[in-house]
């Protein structure tokens, strides 16, 4: 089975600080790492490869430093890694991101399955996977929490959309996976050291020009734009003690003011 795994590098979300004034993530405040759901995607690919053979290609669009995430993926069991990096890819919304990834996948050629994380911990939209599938004209199943059956030409899956659905999908297809699907294994020390020496292919916009429209990439290809980012201020708990005969009434008043009761 030929599998492509899409990987995004994100800041360590537990450590990252937000610059509320500028409405931006302060990326220097936290180290970058692979989006956690993408590790579940990779683990799923490795398990499928262990069962059926084939190969795994990991693909990421991002700045040069995203290479470390691809190296990590190589250590964990991917066979080949490609980094899409170019100033012309920058400033992409989810649509342009998906278009760029889909274009690169066309260049890669034949595949049976594309696996994504259900969402990223920074962007959090969960849109990129399904959009990639649309650009490629293949079916997709989102929020896969279990792979029930694997056949040469189809998969039987559980998709967890709050309620669980049993879904059969014909290959080639794209799935996005949840954390419940598996526990990503740790790489061996040996493989981590080997992966440091492996080559990572780097593709820029020109490398994709035969397969897509350059105007679909980056800022140019983005149909949406960020007008303003609002970071909600953290609110602590508030304790009020009501005393006296009218305590109940006062309490009711406060609850009404805060629209907690009618």
């Amino acid at each position: 089975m030929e599998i492509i795994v899409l990987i995004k590098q994100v800041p360590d979300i537990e450590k990252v600080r937000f610059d509320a004034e500028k409405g931006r993530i302060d990326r220097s405040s936290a180290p970058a790492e692979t989006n956690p759901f993408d590790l579940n995607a990779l683990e799923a690919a490795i398990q499928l490869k262990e069962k059926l053979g084939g190969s795994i290609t990991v693909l990421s669009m991002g700045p040069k430093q995203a290479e470390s995430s691809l190296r990590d993926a190589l250590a964990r069991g991917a066979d080949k890694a490609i980094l899409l990096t170019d100033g012309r890819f920058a400033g992409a919304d989810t649509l342009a991101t998906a278009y760029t990834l889909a274009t690169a996948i066309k260049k890669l050629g034949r595949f049976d399955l594309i696996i994504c994380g259900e969402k990223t911990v920074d962007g959090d939209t969960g849109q990129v996977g399904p959009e990639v599938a649309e650009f490629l004209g293949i079916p997709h199943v989102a929020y896969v929490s279990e792979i029930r059956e694997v056949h040469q030409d189809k998969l039987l899956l559980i998709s967890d959309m709050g309620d669980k659905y049993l879904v059969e999908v014909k290959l080639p297809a794209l799935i996005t996976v949840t954390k419940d699907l598996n526990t990503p294994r740790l790489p061996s020390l040996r493989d981590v050291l080997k992966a440091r020496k492996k080559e990572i292919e780097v593709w820029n916009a020109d490398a994709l020009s035969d397969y897509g429209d350059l105007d679909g990439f980056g800022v140019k290809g983005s149909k949406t734009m960020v007008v303003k980012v609002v970071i909600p201020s953290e609110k602590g708990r508030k304790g009020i003690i009501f005393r006296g005969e009218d305590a109940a009434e006062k309490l009711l008043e406060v609850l009404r003011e805060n629209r907690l009761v009618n």
Partner: protein
Amino acid sequence: MRQILLVANKYRVPVFPRGGGTGLAAACMPTMSGIILSLERMNKISIDKDNLMAEAEAGATLGDLIKAADEAGLFFPLHPGDEGAHIGGLIACNAGGVRAIKTGVMRNYVKGIEVVLPTGEILILGGKLVKNNAGYDLMQLIIGSEGTLGVVTKAWIRLQPRPQASATIIIPFEDRRKALEFVPKIFQIGVFPLAIEYVEKELVDQTAKILGMSWPCKEGKYHLMLILAESSEEALLLECEKLMDLCEKVGVLEPIIAERREEQANILKIRSEIYSALKNELIDILDTTVPPAKMADLIESVNKLAKKYETYIPAFGHAGDGNLHLHLMRKEGWSKDDYDRLRDEIYEKTIQLGGTITGEHGIGYVRRECFKKFVDRKALELMKEIKKAFDPNNILNPDKIFI
């Protein structure tokens, strides 16, 4: 503090200094009517970035110190267990813990203390100094004195730059002895991890299950867990390569590595919670310590004793420091005498191997009899004289260390 001690000394009222109450030798336990001295409201910390030094009041917690250092972009490497422990308690116990290999235990970090003596004098010993040779080192005497010589009120603690790259490596073995013999070899090739912990798979699997997690290394029964922390990715890589070469040379099972913060934290979490897996059936935790290269001999003797007594002695410990936590477990039909006999045999073996009955938890209240039995006569005599010199009326933490 001075006023309290002056009054207590005048009226001969016992005083029991108390930190976070997390100590493992009942050293803060009051044994008679008296004053329990809690320092929890003396909890200020300030960081001097230029000198890489924290000035901490004794009631600040380990957690506070770690956080304050981190916020200043610095690092306090030690992690002796519970983050609720106070600076005063950590100093009084000379705590060690998992990350003591590279740069030592509490006494290697404390550069100065402010201490109130039982007779009411306030002393400042040491300071933000790296070197200091003026007379006897009274500060080092107070560190590890388990609240019997003076009440620590403030300390100057050395911090380090924050490491830029870290990894946790698990090396699995089929053989207990081989695992422990591997430890000195790591130092011999010039690799000094922040921590080298020895764990047994059965125990960590059990612990992980209780936590709803899973221990990532599936091979081998005996595991060494190494935490590497280096100033750069390149430096880390270099250490990893040296380690891998050693693994190949010695012939071990396949080592695995975690580099993500979350994956490393999960491993450490399981390691730190082993105690929870055991505690229901636990009678005593020993913290016997031998020269690191003698660990294998110690564990061998422990295996034999377990067989002889037909009991199970789970072990884990700070292998890089030769510090082994041996667990005496409940056994049907055993009385206190039986447990004591087994414990003493383990202690005898430990001493024969050039070791000590306690590497980090101290004597406190619970190890007094053993201490008396195994300590050198003359040393004990000197220690008692020192206690008398500091505390002529024996008001400070009486009934501790000596029996």
